[in-house]
C-alpha cells in the first residue's frame, strides 16, 4: 500500500466517508479469500470493475504498484505450479505440473493482483489525512483498552506531512555537500556507505530539530493529546455511505453463498 498517491478528481468514491472505504477494502480482501470457485472470482471481478468505473481514476494509476510486486507474484505462481501434488498434466524432467497446482497458481495470481488494485483504489481516492481520520475513528473502540489510538493517528499524519519536506531537505544537503567536493556515486560499496554520513547526519539533526519545533508549536497552541479534542471537519455519514455499507454486506453475503452452495465448475 503506497500512502500519499492521492489522485485529485471528483467522484462518488472520492466523496465517500473514509471509514466506508477502509471497511470496504477489508471486506473486499475477505471476499477475495472466500472465493473458492469461478463464480467467486467472477463476483470479485465485477465488483472491482464497478468500483474502478465509479472512481474516475485512470487505469494506469491502479496498476502503478504492480511492477514492484511482479516478482512476488511470479514466485507464488511458480511455487504453486510445481509444488502442488495432484493429477499430473505435464511432466518435464523432475518438474510436474498438476491440475490442482495450475488452478491454485492462477487463483493466487488473481487474488494478489486484485488485492493490490483494490487497496490502490482506496489510497487513490482518499487523502492521507482523511485516511488517518478514518483509521482513528474505526479504531476508537480500542481506547477502552487504553490503546493510544489518537496519538498513533496523529503520528501517522505528521509522518506523511513531513515526507515532502524531508525530500527537499535531502536534495539541499546533497547539493551543499557536493559543493564541498563530496560525491555520492563513486567507489565501491564501503566508499558509498561512508559517503552517506555527510548526508544522513545533517538530515537526522534537522529532522529532530523540526520535530522539536513542531512539538513546541503544538503545545503552544494548547495541544494535549486526544482526550476531549474536537475536529474541524468531523466525519459524518451521508446517504451514499449507508448505501456503501449495504453493498459491502451484500458482497460478503454473496461471497459466502457462492462458496457454500454447489454450482457447476
Amino acid at each position, binding site marked *: 500500500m503506497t500512502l500519499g498517491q492521492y489522485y485529485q478528481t471528483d467522484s462518488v468514491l472520492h466523496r465517500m466517508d473514509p471509514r466506508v472505504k477502509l471497511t470496504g477494502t477489508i471486506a473486499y480482501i475477505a471476499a477475495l479469500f472466500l472465493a473458492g470457485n469461478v463464480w467467486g472470482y467472477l463476483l470479485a471481478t465485477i465488483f472491482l470493475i464497478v468500483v474502478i468505473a465509479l472512481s474516475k481514476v485512470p487505469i494506469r494509476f491502479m496498476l502503478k504498484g504492480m511492477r514492484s510486486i511482479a516478482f512476488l507474484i511470479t514466485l507464488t505462481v511458480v511455487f504453486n505450479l510445481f509444488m502442488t501434488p495432484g493429477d499430473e498434466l505435464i511432466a518435464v524432467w523432475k518438474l510436474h505440473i498438476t491440475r490442482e497446482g495450475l488452478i491454485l497458481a492462477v487463483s493466487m495470481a488473481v487474488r494478489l493482483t486484485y488485492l493490490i488494485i483494490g487497496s490502490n483504489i482506496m489510497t487513490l481516492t482518499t487523502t492521507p489525512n482523511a485516511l488517518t481520520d478514518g483509521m482513528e475513528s474505526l479504531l476508537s473502540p480500542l481506547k477502552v483498552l487504553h490503546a493510544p489510538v489518537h496519538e498513533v493517528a496523529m503520528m501517522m499524519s505528521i509522518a506523511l506531512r513531513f515526507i515532502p519536506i524531508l525530500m527537499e531537505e535531502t536534495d539541499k544537503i546533497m547539493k*551543499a*555537500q557536493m*559543493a*564541498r*567536493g*563530496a560525491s555520492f556515486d563513486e567507489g565501491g560499496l564501503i566508499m558509498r556507505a561512508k559517503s552517506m554520513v555527510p548526508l544522513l547526519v*545533517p538530515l537526522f539533526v*534537522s529532522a529532530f530539530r523540526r520535530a522539536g519545533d513542531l512539538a513546541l508549536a503544538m503545545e503552544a497552541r494548547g495541544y494535549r493529546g486526544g482526550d476531549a479534542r474536537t475536529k474541524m471537519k468531523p466525519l459524518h455519514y451521508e446517504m451514499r455511505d449507508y448505501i456503501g455499507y449495504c453493498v459491502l454486506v451484500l458482497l460478503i453475503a454473496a461471497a459466502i453463498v457462492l462458496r457454500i452452495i454447489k454450482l457447476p465448475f
Partner: protein
Amino acid sequence: MILEFKDVNYIYDPDSTISSVALKDINLSIREGVFYALIGHTGSGKSTLIQHMNGLIQPTSGEVLYKGMSLRDKNADLKMIRSRVGLVFQYPEHQLFETTVYDDVAFGPKNLKLPKDEIDARVKEALILTGVDESVWQNSPFELSGGQKRRVAIAGVLAMKPEVLILDEPTAGLDPGGRDEILNVLKRLHSEEKITIILVSHSMEDVAGYADRIIVMNKGHIEYEDSPVQIFRHAEELKNMGLSVPQVTDVLTRLKSKGWPVKDGIITVSEAADEIMRVLGKA
C-alpha cells in the same frame, strides 16, 4: 571573465504538467575581483541561477562557461570547478556533520585529496579568516551559537580556496551583530584575499555599502546589472518588483524633491549624514 552565462534558460520539470520556467535568456559575465550583489524577490530565480555557476544544475538550453570552458563539457572536471567556485547555501550551518569544527572544515580539502599538511594549513587559514576562535576548533560544531556555526560552515567552503565565493542569503536569521560580522568577513575576503564575491540577498539595505555591482533579478530574468548608484535611480521600478532602495537613499530623494540641494547617489547612512550636514552648514 571567470564565469559567463550565454542565453541560459532553465525549466523545472520540463516533461510534467507542472513545469515552470525558472530562468529565461540569462546573459551575464562575472569579472574577477568584483564584489557582486544578486538581488531579487523570493522566487525570482536567484538560487537557481547560482546553482548553475558550479554545475549543480545544468541549463535546459544555453551554456555556462568557467574561464571559457563549458560546464556541460564531458571533459569538464566538476569537482575541480566546484572547488574554484565556492557555493555557500542558505542556512549553511545545517550541513555541518563532523564531530569537531576542525574536521568539518577539513571535509572539502579532504575531498580534493590534498596532502595532509596542506589540508591543515587551509583549515587553519579558513577558520582564522572567518574569525572562529581557536578555543572551539576541537569542539563539536553543534555546541556553537548560530552565528559561529554559520562562520564555520563558510570556512568549510573557504578551505577549498575558491576564486569565486557565492553566498545565498548568508545573513538570514542572524541578529544585527551577527549580520555585520559576516558581511565584514566578506569585505575582508574581497579586499585582502582578492576573492570574487557574489552575495545573494533580498535586502538592498544589506548590500548597498558593500557591493561594487548589483544584479537585479525579476521573474527569472536579469532586469539590471549596474553599480549601486545607477541601480538606485530606478526606485520606482524596483518597488514594482517588490524590492526597495535603502531607506537613506529614499530620504535624500524626497529631500531633493522638496527643494533641498542634496547630491544624488547616496547609499549609506554615514554618507547621508555628511551630505545633510554639508547642506545644513551652507544653509
